[in-house]
């Protein structure tokens, strides 16, 4: 037996771009994920950016990002989709209830053929409720879920906001929903091993997105106040780079002790060396002095150095990197995180983010580049349906 947890598990994926990340995670765990695509290809194949900015179904980087490790079968008719679902262990789809029923891909129809099927529907609002038929992309979900209200620049000196709430790039609401879908599928598969039975999973992207704002609901419940958006404390280093400079004083007296030692060593502690600052109440009342000392420190170092100075003092600091700058992180490189996959038809290798965790006995599977459109149609039909292809 090989090491992958989902070795031998067949996943049929019938999704738009909102939930493709689910299949990527399941493929990483070793599942055989087959993407059933219409002849023109999945919608994400037509979303840019493209390799060398030349559009084409096999050149979309948006598609590549979420389809590593899958196989692609072009399936033009729903009879074949149903047959593939009957041969699968898991179906992940993004069909609204009405569309699923119209196409004969609804749960009762599919489960009659395959009672052990795990059927996972990922939709913006879930299968029911007053908004079930509403339209939403990632931006709408980030708004309704609460992330946007809490992200953006702070108010001006007059207390008024002159910039809107902001959503993060990278489709985070979709990714959160797709991740929850993978979790639910794993739970269902664990139970199926014991019971032999399948079931239906109903993932509401809105609910996923509405439960990821950490302490914000609790602050409202506890204090009646609503958190308003504004950045975390950030220092600007001598080279202009920014460093997230958290000072979690609440974790204990060691936090300030470590910071003070570092500031004194760099000769910028100033009034913080006054023993009065050992008292947390005094520190809280004179926090401006603490921040001034940190700003003096920031003037002495570039961003990368400042990050490591803070970490050396035990502080959870991090230099703010763009996505591509993460590729150079020595720690992630040492952990073998990034993986180059050959794209032979393009004559080049492409570096992808790899395993989300290190599992020595069941390593993350990262061997197959994203599939060309229809690349595996014949072999999938032969393997899953026993037909000789078309």
């Amino acid at each position: 037996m090989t090491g992958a947890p989902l070795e031998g598990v067949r996943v049929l994926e019938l999704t738009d771009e909102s939930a493709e990340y689910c299949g990527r995670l399941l493929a990483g765990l070793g599942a055989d994920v087959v993407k059933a695509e219409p002849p023109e290809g999945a919608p994400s194949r037509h979303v840019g950016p493209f390799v060398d900015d030349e559009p084409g179904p096999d050149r979309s980087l948006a598609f590549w990002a979420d389809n590593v490790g899958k196989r692609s079968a072009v399936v033009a008719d729903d009879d074949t989709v149903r047959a593939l679902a009957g041969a699968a262990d898991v179906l992940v789809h993004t069909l609204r209830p009405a569309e699923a029923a119209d196409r004969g891909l609804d749960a009762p129809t599919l489960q009659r053929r395959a009672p052990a099927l795990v059927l996972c529907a990922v939709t913006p609002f879930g299968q029911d409720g007053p908004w079930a038929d509403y339209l939403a992309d990632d931006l709408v979900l980030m708004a309704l879920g609460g992330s946007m209200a809490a992200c953006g620049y702070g108010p001006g000196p007059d207390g008024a906001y002159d910039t809107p709430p902001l959503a993060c790039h990278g489709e985070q609401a979709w990714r959160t929903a797709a991740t929850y879908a993978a979790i639910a599928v794993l739970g269902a598969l664990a139970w199926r091993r014991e019971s032999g039975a399948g079931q239906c999973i109903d993932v509401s992207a809105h609910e996923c997105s509405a439960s990821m704002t950490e302490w914000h609901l609790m602050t409202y419940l506890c204090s009646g106040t609503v958190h308003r958006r504004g950045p975390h404390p950030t220092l600007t280093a001598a080279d202009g780079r920014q460093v997230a400079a958290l000072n979690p004083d609440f974790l204990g007296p060691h936090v300030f002790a470590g910071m003070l030692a570092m500031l004194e060593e760099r000769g910028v502690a100033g009034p913080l060396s006054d023993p009065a600052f050992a008292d947390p109440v005094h520190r809280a009342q004179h926090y401006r002095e603490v921040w001034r000392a940190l700003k003096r420190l920031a003037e002495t170092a570039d961003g990368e150095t400042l990050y490591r100075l803070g970490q050396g003092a035990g502080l959870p600091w991090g230099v703010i990197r763009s996505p591509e700058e993460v590729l150079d992180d020595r720690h992630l490189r040492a952990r073998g995180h990034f993986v180059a996959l050959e794209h032979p038809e393009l004559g080049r290798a492409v570096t992808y983010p790899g395993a989300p965790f290190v599992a020595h006995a069941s390593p993350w599977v990262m061997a197959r580049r994203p599939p060309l459109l229809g690349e595996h149609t014949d072999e999938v039909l032969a393997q899953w349906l026993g037909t000789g292809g078309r």
Partner: protein
Amino acid sequence: MALDGLRILDFTRLGFGAQATLICGCLGAEVIRVESTRFPDAIRVMPPFVPEPGERGEAFGAATLANATGATSANRGGIFYKYNTGGKKSITVDARHPEGLALLKELVARSDVVAESFAAGTMARWGLSYDVMAAIRPDLVYVSMCGFGHEGPDTAHVTMGPTAQALTGLTFMVGMPGRPPAGWSFSYLDHVGGYLGAVAILAGVVHRRRTGQGQHIDVSQLEPATALSGALLLDAAVNGRPSRRPGFPMGNRRLHPPAAPSGAYPAAGDDRWVVISCRTEEHWCNLVRALGDPPWAAEARFATLEDRVRNADALDAELSAWTRRHDRYEAMALLQGAGVPAGAVQDAADRLERDPQLQARGHYCALGNAEVAPLPLEGVPFRMSATAPHTGGRLRRGPPCLGEDTDAVLRDVLGKGEDAIAALRAAGALS
């Protein structure tokens, strides 16, 4: 429930680790939190505090060591409630006490999973390294969750959510052209890291059921985040187009797929906003009709999607003049009714009090404990038809008071009698 019969010995704390075991608890696992009375989880003793009935607590922004040490109870810390539903039990054991350590080893022998989120090496220093635990329980699934993981040159680095967000590009990706990054004002990666921690636990359990093999799975707070930048990372790696370039990130606008109008538009009221996002010709036509066919919408500069993207500033100005006259929820209902993707920008209070969808789905789950009356806590965001998850876990319970299950767990899991428990307590092993 999906994870019936699975026992997780849970040494996690703060948000990142606890999110992982929370999900497993909601799926039916028995989660036993191992805690300390002397060093309680910081989120048990820091604001916001759940107030006494009729009182008003403090906001999170007031969290300092000064008021953390002034906490009157370890059972009122609000953030603890967010991360410790799932029917988690709480026991207090002093791992540095010889009899406490022996007790933990007995619990390891009877657990399927050990999860923890201490700094690398902490549990090994207590005498609970993976090797020690695997000798006790060879098929143990041990999932460690610490900022940089247990292997690599920077394992000594510490993270909180915003640290990991800065280092992995998440902070950078929230911002407007010509300004420094704005980032997130909360620990998004405590959630995402926790989700992948749950994936790690589940994958480890499935792997063990297939092969009988246990293992150590090393989860960091960085690796779960690198795929979140999606095509931006690949655009740099493949096309040499870095995200750190003038005009990027683009606020709420996106280059791919092209969309206009698309963004947050000011609604009636103070700092109220409604998001509208038109990617297709159909969305645009529906929008124009919903707005009552205003003359500006028929101008040549807005004729095609390409035109609208090119003239997005002018388009946004026209549309904003309309949105300003409408309540954000009215605008959302009107536009959605016409087939336009739109949504109010909701804050935490809105989600709880004004969101009919979350209400109809029964998202919030009222849970309390011995000290706190039931609070509407955020629930499990998915349904399962055969093994329904529950926010209160298998016990349908609220977050545990510190140590409230110590005696019951020692009795039911380890078969300890009252006298043995009393002796352990007298010896100081249960603090």
